[in-house]
């Protein structure tokens, strides 16, 4: 079975500061990894995904994530956040035809 652990339920940060949202997964086989974002009162939308190849994946809105197989991690980073990045972020793992989501990290960007 595969599972996803998001290590922080809430991350407050000031505008223009860097941020890292942490995600660890457990799986005995190769997986595909995703980060989704949910803005207030909206559904989820894809930020980025790792399928294969380069371990550094760039996504929309200046976000990037690094796949680390030895540490089974897929942490999301942004060098300088904006107020508009305030949202909930979900890490997800796909192995078979379905996807498993983490519990989410609420990022709050303060002015």
């Amino acid at each position, binding site marked *: 079975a595969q599972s996803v652990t998001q290590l922080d339920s809430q991350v407050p940060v000031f505008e223009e500061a860097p941020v890292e949202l942490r995600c660890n997964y457990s799986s005995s086989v190769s997986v595909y990894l995703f980060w989704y974002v949910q803005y207030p009162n*909206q*559904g989820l939308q894809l930020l980025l995904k790792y399928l294969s190849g380069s371990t550094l994946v760039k996504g929309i809105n200046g976000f990037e994530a690094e796949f680390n197989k030895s540490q089974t991690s897929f942490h999301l980073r942004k060098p300088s956040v904006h107020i508009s990045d305030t949202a909930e972020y*979900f890490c997800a793992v796909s192995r*078979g035809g379905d*996807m498993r989501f983490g*519990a*989410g990290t609420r990022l709050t960007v303060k002015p």
Partner: protein
Amino acid sequence: DVKVTQSSRYLVKRTGEKVFLECVQDMDHENMFWYRQDPGLGLRLIYFSYDVKMKEKGDIPEGYSVSREKKERFSLILESASTNQTSMYLCASSLGTSGTRADTQYFGPGTRLTVL
């Protein structure tokens, strides 16, 4: 752009009522999914469908059923609503090519269901 629509944004029902949640996608996707989202638990898969008239149980199917009579429409049914089914319900679809597990899922805006 892929569009996934859900019939209601907010719904209030009484215990014991039969509840229908409708989801429609406009991109000819093969796969459709129903999740419920609860604080601290993330998204949990209720049911999914790989094709018309086909359905598979997810992690928490108890108390729910689904129907997929047409490719673009996937309905979630609560046969007898209970208060513990108060939640946000999210529908999603994905392309369903041979690389299904790499598919991006596209989500609707969600239906916030309250059962009194």
